[in-house]
Structures are given as structure tokens and as C-alpha cells.
């Protein structure tokens, strides 16, 4: 493989925002996740839990509720008082309707999917009718005294339970009047000065209302009589979320201490027909508040302030007990936030509202394998570029020569020119962007930095020629058939002839840049593409998919390469297919055409195409072979996949030149150190 000097970078101060709401859609097995900065991400749970779409956030948007309605329509409501619908095909926000009730705290879609209920700050519950292209205000229910923090529909659609501060009201949908008002105790068996906030309610079809509140109680109420049936004290802190399964035989609650409890309806004795709700399983996968939970038919999904998305399949619901039934924790982003300029050794970090440009340090020392070399020159923070406006940055890129920076938000596209004089840099913005260059899903510069490729969210692909300080629009490839995906990836060959774009469900399109026409299309695969790159001399396109399959396609020959066919015939090693995190970057060695370097969050791998492939019996993760072992043994155990887990968690890894690698790590403790404070837990002996 060779010897490399590795730049271990830990100054990328990436802190993801906490998860605020989660909504599970049963028909398409998709999960919509909304974060505290306003970003909404859609995960495809059947495609190996891959994030396939996302809507960038906005500073003024503080989403408090998210729900799916009939026909795969996604709605969100927040503290700015507006209900927004997201267009999953065009990847933008369709419209925002002001509910005129102040900040919106909760939202629920009716079981039929045609009506939307919204609970506002002023205590009013508003009913909206979902029309094919918009939502229409229908009427107000009886106004309550304090803010409505949680809502739940009865499965038949006739009644509604609304949780507020210190009480729960049950409304009749037809008349809109409050039928019952159930007062919640402020503390389990006691008195307290602090008001009891009912964070979640759930309405079951037998008329039971389940409420979770800030005193740590889970209470069962009978909605016909408006009385308390049972009360469980499960935590010392708030219980912040509740989700009921569709069959109504189990529900899950999340607490502020990070524990998730599973309640199930079990018969009282083994052969009796009477059933009762019993708290069966506690799960401690979070360290901070669990602000939202969801219950899919086979798994419990939870997310909270500690930014992890945890999906826990329930063993009794899973049919086949294989690796699919393991715990999934999604912490790191599924797309690349870092771009690298190899010539000048610069790294561009993308944050939500600013970009940072760093120059890597250098060292003059040498050492042997495993040594840490002292830096003679520290890494330099060259530029801190803040974006104008409240919108989040979608994508950014720096050109390989280091003189152009481009980034895009939802409404604007920014292009900057950098000048380097000795040790200083100066920045100049290229004004007057053309109108079609508005919001880009992916930006890429060509290897010689003369061309800029922009994939816009309407599906078109633009080629812009850069020269000096100005640009000229060369060509726009119109969208092909198939729906546009948000994980649009671009790859350009190093000679500048070929451009590969994966943005549609029709497969990866390869365009001829010199002749400006479509060259070929790689056949569509049912799992989304997570990373793509074109090899320098052979012009082979290497594609990695979310189910950990890696394909190699030869662009000049318009067919899969022989090596790729061999790999597909034999299949990957089972441990390779069981990796949790998707491959986010692929790169190549300039002098060794048989090597492919790829990485995911917990490992990086160099695939040597000249060595034999491993079968399921061989060891996939080879440690460094000790030198005193005989050559024969080493040759027998050597296989094509050289995997190293030294640097983790990896956000980015690339080859700077023949003997240098750069690895950007983000230790989990550094993220935890910047999160809001957790609940105090008293441990014995401390």
C-alpha cells in the first residue's frame, strides 16, 4: 500500500443540531426528522437507513411539530406561527400558511389523512382541511386558557385530546366544544409549585387517553367519564414524548434523562382475556433529553438533544433475526461537508451559517510507522465567511487550485475569488449571478479549475466557464426522466472530459463535457448512491450505494469493468455489508491505478484490485501483519480490502499527494461538550 504521512485534523468544530420531531410514514417506510435549526431530513428506512432527501433550515423557523398526511404529504408547524408543506418531488417548500394563533406548539393529522389539527399559543385548536394543492382553514374549536402543547386524534376521528398546562381537554370534533377537562396532578402523590406541563397525549380506540407530563408520570384517563384510571411514575424528570403503535398493543415514551421506555398490553394472567399496560423494557441509548419518539411496526425510533437518531428494532416483531435487527445509531452526516484543495493544502469546512477555510500545517520531521511527528508550522485559520441572510448553506466547494469558493443557499448562489499574496489572502465576490443559478444541490469544480458544474434543484445541470474574475454560462443539461433526488452527487474526470451526475431515480448519467451531450447512463439500482468518483487515467466511474455495494463502470466502454463483474459474482464479505455508515468519499492514487481509497465514518479502506477478493471465511479486518511471520502466511491472508480503523470517527479522508493523506476526525466527546446541559443523575459512589 505504501507509506503515508497523515494529517490528523481535529479542528473542524462540527456540532449537529438536536432532533426536535420525528414522523414515521408506514406506507413508504420513510422517516422525516426535523432538527432545531429548521432542517428537515427524510430517511429511507428500507435503503439501509440512508438520508435521501433534506430541506435546509432557516433561522426564524423553529419547528415544533411534523406530520405526514394522506398521499405522502409532509407538513410542519413551528413557533413562527406558520404551517409549511414540503414538496418532496421538487425539494422545496411549497407554501407556508399563517395560522393566526401565535406560535404553533403541536400538530396532528386526522386518521383519514384529510384534516389537520393545530394547537396554538393562545389556547385555540384550529382545524384545517387538506385540499389537493393547499390547506384551507375550516374552523376553531373552543378556546382554552393556556397553550395547547400536544394533540391526538381518536382513531375514528370523532374526538380529540389536547394536553395543556395542568390539564387535558377532550373535544368533540363535530361541535368543537370541550367535552371533558381533566386536571393533572402537579406531582405524583404530592404538591408542587411548578406547573405540570403535559408534553404528550395519545388517544386509543377504546377511549383511553394516555398522557405524559413534566412530573415524570404516565397517566391513563378514561375519556368517557373524564377520570384518572392509572398513574405510573417512571422518571424523576420530564417525560417528553409518546408514540403508540398502529395495533395499539404497545407504546413508547421518552424521558429527559435519555431513557426510552416501552409499554406493552399484556394479559393479566397467562390465559385470561383481561389485559393491562405494563412497562416492559427500558432503553438507555441517549445521554440528553429524548424529545421525540416514533413507533414503526417493527422498531422504536427516538431522537433528542444529543443529536443521535436511534432506531431499535424490537426482537419480537422482527421476522428474520439477522443483522437487520441490530441497533442503528445515526450520528454523523450522510453527505460530505468538507472539500479540499490539493495544490494549496486547504480545507473548506461547511457549517450551517458560515464557511471556514484552513490551511494544513506542515512538518519537517520524519519517523517510522506509528510515530506522531511534531508540527513545525501550525494549521492556519485563513477565512471565516459568514453567509448573508437567515438561510442555511446547502452545499459548498473549493476549486482544486484554491482560488474559487462557491456555495449556495435556498435562494442565492455565491461565488468568490481568492487571491493569495505571500501569506495573506484576499476575497472578492463575483456579483451578478444569473437568475437560473439560484439554489444548487451540488457544486463541483473541474480539475483545472476552469469550469464550474452546478446541479440545481429543478433537475438541470449547468456548466459555467470561469476565467479570470468572471464567468460565462456554457450549457445547461435539462433534467432527464425520473424524480429528482436531493442526494445529487457530481463527479468529474481529471482530464475534464466526462461528468457523472446521480440525481434522478433513472440511474447515473454520464455527460461528455467537450461535446456537451449525454454519453451514457449507468443502469438504475434500487438503492441510492452515496459516493461517486472517476479514476484519473482509466476513466472508470466508481459508485458506492447505500447497501454498501461498490460498482465500477468504464465510461469509454460503456459497460461494467471485469473487476466489478467478478466482485458482483462473488459478492462482498458479510462484514463489509454489515457496516452501519455509508461511504461518503472515494478517491484515487495518481500513480497506482489499481488502488481505490474509500471511507465511511468508522473505517477507511484501500481496495487493491490486483489482489484476490476475500470470501466469507477469511478475516476481513486484517491487522498489521507482524514482520516475523513468514511470507507464505502473509500471502495467503492478503486480500484486496485493506481496512484500517485507526482514525475514527472520520468525517473526511483524502489523498493530498502521493505520500500524504488527510483525515478529518470528530470525536464524539467534543460534540457532547457543546450540547445543552443534561439532567443530573446521581450515581452511587460519586
Amino acid at each position, binding site marked *: 500500500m505504501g507509506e503515508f504521512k497523515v494529517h490528523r485534523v481535529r479542528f473542524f468544530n462540527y456540532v449537529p443540531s438536536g432532533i426536535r420531531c420525528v414522523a414515521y410514514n408506514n406506507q413508504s417506510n420513510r422517516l422525516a426528522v426535523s432538527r432545531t435549526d429548521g432542517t428537515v431530513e427524510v430517511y429511507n428506512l428500507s435503503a439501509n437507513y440512508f438520508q435521501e432527501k433534506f430541506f435546509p433550515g432557516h433561522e426564524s423557523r423553529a419547528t415544533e411539530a411534523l406530520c405526514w398526511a394522506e398521499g405522502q404529504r409532509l407538513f410542519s408547524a413551528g413557533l413562527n406561527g406558520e404551517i409549511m408543506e414540503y414538496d418532496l418531488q421538487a425539494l422545496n417548500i411549497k407554501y407556508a400558511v399563517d395560522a393566526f394563533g*401565535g*406560535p404553533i406548539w403541536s400538530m396532528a393529522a386526522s386518521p383519514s389523512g384529510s384534516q389537520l389539527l393545530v394547537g396554538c399559543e393562545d389556547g385555540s385548536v384550529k382545524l384545517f382541511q387538506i385540499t389537493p394543492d393547499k390547506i384551507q382553514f375550516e374552523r376553531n374549536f373552543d378556546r382554552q386558557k393556556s397553550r395547547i402543547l400536544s394533540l391526538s386524534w381518536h382513531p375514528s376521528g370523532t374526538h380529540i385530546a389536547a394536553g395543556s398546562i395542568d390539564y387535558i381537554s377532550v373535544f368533540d370534533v363535530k361541535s368543537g366544544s370541550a367535552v371533558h377537562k381533566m386536571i393533572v396532578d402537579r406531582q405524583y402523590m404530592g404538591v408542587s409549585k411548578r406547573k405540570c406541563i403535559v408534553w404528550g397525549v395519545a388517544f386509543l380506540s377504546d377511549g383511553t387517553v394516555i398522557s405524559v407530563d413534566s412530573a415524570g408520570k404516565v397517566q391513563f384517563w378514561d375519556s368517557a367519564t373524564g377520570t384518572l384510571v392509572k398513574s405510573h411514575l417512571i422518571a424523576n424528570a420530564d417525560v417528553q414524548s409518546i408514540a403508540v403503535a398502529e395495533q395499539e398493543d404497545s407504546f413508547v415514551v421518552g424521558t429527559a434523562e435519555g431513557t426510552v421506555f416501552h409499554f406493552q398490553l399484556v394479559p393479566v394472567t397467562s390465559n385470561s382475556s383481561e389485559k393491562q399496560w405494563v412497562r416492559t423494557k427500558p432503553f438507555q441509548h441517549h445521554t440528553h*433529553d429524548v424529545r421525540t419518539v416514533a413507533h414503526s411496526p417493527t422498531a422504536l425510533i427516538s431522537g433528542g438533544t444529543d443529536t443521535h437518531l436511534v432506531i431499535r428494532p424490537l426482537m419480537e416483531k422482527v421476522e428474520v433475526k439477522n443483522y437487520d435487527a441490530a441497533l442503528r445509531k445515526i450520528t454523523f452526516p450522510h453527505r460530505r461537508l468538507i472539500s479540499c484543495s490539493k495544490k494549496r493544502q486547504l480545507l473548506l469546512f461547511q457549517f450551517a451559517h458560515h464557511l471556514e477555510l484552513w490551511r494544513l500545517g506542515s512538518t519537517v520531521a520524519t519517523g517510522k510507522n506509528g510515530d506522531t511527528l511534531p508540527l513545525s508550522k501550525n494549521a492556519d485559520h485563513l477565512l471565516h465567511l459568514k453567509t448573508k441572510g437567515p438561510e442555511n448553506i446547502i452545499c459548498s466547494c473549493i476549486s482544486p487550485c484554491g482560488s474559487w469558493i462557491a456555495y449556495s443557499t435556498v435562494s442565492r448562489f455565491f461565488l468568490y475569488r481568492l487571491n493569495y499574496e505571500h501569506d495573506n489572502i484576499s476575497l472578492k465576490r463575483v456579483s451578478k449571478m444569473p437568475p437560473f443559478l439560484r439554489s444548487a444541490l451540488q457544486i463541483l469544480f473541474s480539475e483545472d479549475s476552469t469550469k464550474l458544474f452546478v446541479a440545481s434543484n429543478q433537475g438541470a445541470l449547468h456548466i459555467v466557464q470561469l476565467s479570470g474574475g468572471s464567468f460565462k454560462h456554457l450549457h445547461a443539461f435539462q433534467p432527464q426522466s425520473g424524480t429528482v433526488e436531493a442526494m445529487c452527487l457530481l463527479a468529474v474526470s481529471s482530464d475534464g472530459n466526462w461528468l457523472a451526475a446521480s440525481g434522478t431515480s433513472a440511474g447515473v448519467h454520464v455527460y461528455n463535457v467537450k461535446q456537451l451531450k449525454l454519453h451514457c447512463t449507468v443502469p438504475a439500482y434500487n438503492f441510492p448512491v452515496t459516493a461517486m468518483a472517476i479514476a484519473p487515467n482509466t476513466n472508470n466511474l466508481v459508485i458506492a450505494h447505500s447497501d454498501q455495494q461498490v460498482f465500477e463502470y468504464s465510461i469509454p466502454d460503456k459497460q461494467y469493468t471485469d473487476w466489478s463483474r467478478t466482485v458482483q459474482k462473488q459478492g462482498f464479505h458479510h462484514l463489509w455489508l454489515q457496516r452501519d455508515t455509508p461511504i461518503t468519499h472515494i478517491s484515487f492514487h495518481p500513480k497506482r491505478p489499481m488502488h481505490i481509497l474509500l471511507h465511511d465514518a468508522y473505517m477507511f479502506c484501500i481496495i487493491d484490485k490486483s489482489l484476490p477478493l476475500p470470501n466469507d471465511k477469511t478475516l476481513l479486518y486484517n491487522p498489521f501483519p507482524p514482520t516475523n511471520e513468514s511470507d507464505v502466511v502473509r500471502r495467503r491472508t492478503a486480500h484486496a480490502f485493506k481496512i484500517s480503523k485507526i482514525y475514527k470517527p472520520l468525517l473526511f479522508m483524502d489523498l493530498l499527494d502521493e505520500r500524504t493523506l488527510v483525515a478529518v476526525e470528530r470525536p464524539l466527546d467534543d460534540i*457532547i461538550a457543546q450540547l445543552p*446541559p*443534561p*439532567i*443530573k443523575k446521581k450515581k452511587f459512589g460519586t
Partner: protein
Amino acid sequence: MVQLRPRASRAPASAEAMVDEGQPASEEEEAEHGLLLGQPSSGAAAEPLEEDEEGDDEFDDEAPEELTFASAQAEAREEERRVRETVRRDKTLLKEKRKRREELFIEQKKRKLLPDTILEKLTTASQTNVKKSPGKVKEVNLQKKNEDCEKGNDSKKVKVQKVQSVSQNKSYLAVRLKDQDLRDSRQAAAQAFIHNSLYGPGTNRTTVNKFLSLANKRLPVKKAAVQFLNNAWGIQKKQNAKRFKRRWMVRKMKTKK
């Protein structure tokens, strides 16, 4: 007019003295009463009474002053004039002050408003619009136009084109401050509520430092607690120390050689 003053310390001859002095006192009082017509008599009477009490002891033997009516009248008139003049001066001063303040306010208001050119353009544009739809209010019109302007270049209404000619290079959005303030304050109040209920007083929260140290304390090999460094502390001191070290090294090298 004759006021009897009680003289407890005096001998029986005091009654005579009182009668004698009553007259000059009354003369003075009369004159003074003639002078100070507008003022309440009690005030006027109080002063000369007190003065005369002490004065009478000394000027017991001397004859009272003789004042002609004319001179007294002249004095009184002068006093009056003086008083009136001071009043007038005060009034004019106040007026001037008020004027200056008004001007200052007008200037400040002017500074706050948009420059005249833009206002002219806006008013002319709105007038033409008003001609088209006479029923609308100007304010509402302005707001609507600005909303159209915000929607972007895609809409093909004639109104929008007019607005585009007004705002050539700039793209701005005009909203009523009253509405925006209300919305912002409500959102801020809502966020404060959430923050208070989750992280406010009464919640059992611990710091990140303690949270990370807890794990260290429970390990089989106990480690020290986590400490956060503040790199921004004492930057100047560190820089000075660095500079001093460099200079000292150079000096050391020189002396060694």
C-alpha cells in the same frame, strides 16, 4: 389696618409705645399695601411685621421716615415693571427653547425617513396605482406592492413591473414594523417558555463538565475529572511571554558567541 402686636417683655409703658408705633407701622403698611396690589395681604403683612418688631427696638426714639405718595407710587410702578419684564423674558426664553426642540425633532425625523428621491418615486408610483384602483388605501397599496416585489421576478403583473422600475438595483422588503414586532415578541416569549420549563429554575440540570466527569469516576481505574481549557484566557500575557522568550534566546545566543 391697625394691628396690635403682643409685647409680653415690655413694661406698662408698652401700651403707649404700641399706640405710638402703631401709626408709623400702619403708614408703612398702607404704602406697601398700595404697592403690592396683586399679592395676598397676609404675605405682605407678615414681613413688615417681623421687620418692624426688631426695628422698633432700635428706632424707638427716631421719627419715622417720610415718604411722599408720588415717590412711593413711582417705586411701586418700577417694581411692577421689573416684575413684568422678568416674566416676559422668561416666557420668551421658554418659547425659544420649545422652538429649538421642535426643530431638533423635525430634523431627527427627517433623518429617519428615506431620502427624498425614493419617497418621491414611491409616492408617484402609488399615485398612478391609486388612479387605477381608486378604492384602495395608499398604505395598503404600498404594502401590497412591496409584497409583490418580494415575490420575485417571476410574476408577470403590470404592477410589479412598475415597482421594479422604482427599485432598480436594490431588493428590499417593506413590512409593517408593528406586525413584525408582535410576531417576534410572541416567538421570543414562546422560546423563553420552553427554555424555562426545560432548563430554568427547578429543573435538575447538571453541567457538561460534571456529566463527562461522572463516567471517569466510575471507571475501574478512576481517572481525574474532565477540565475544560479556556484558550482565550490571558492572550496578551501569553503573547508577551512568547516575545520575551524570543528576545532572551537571541540575547543568549549573542552573549555565547
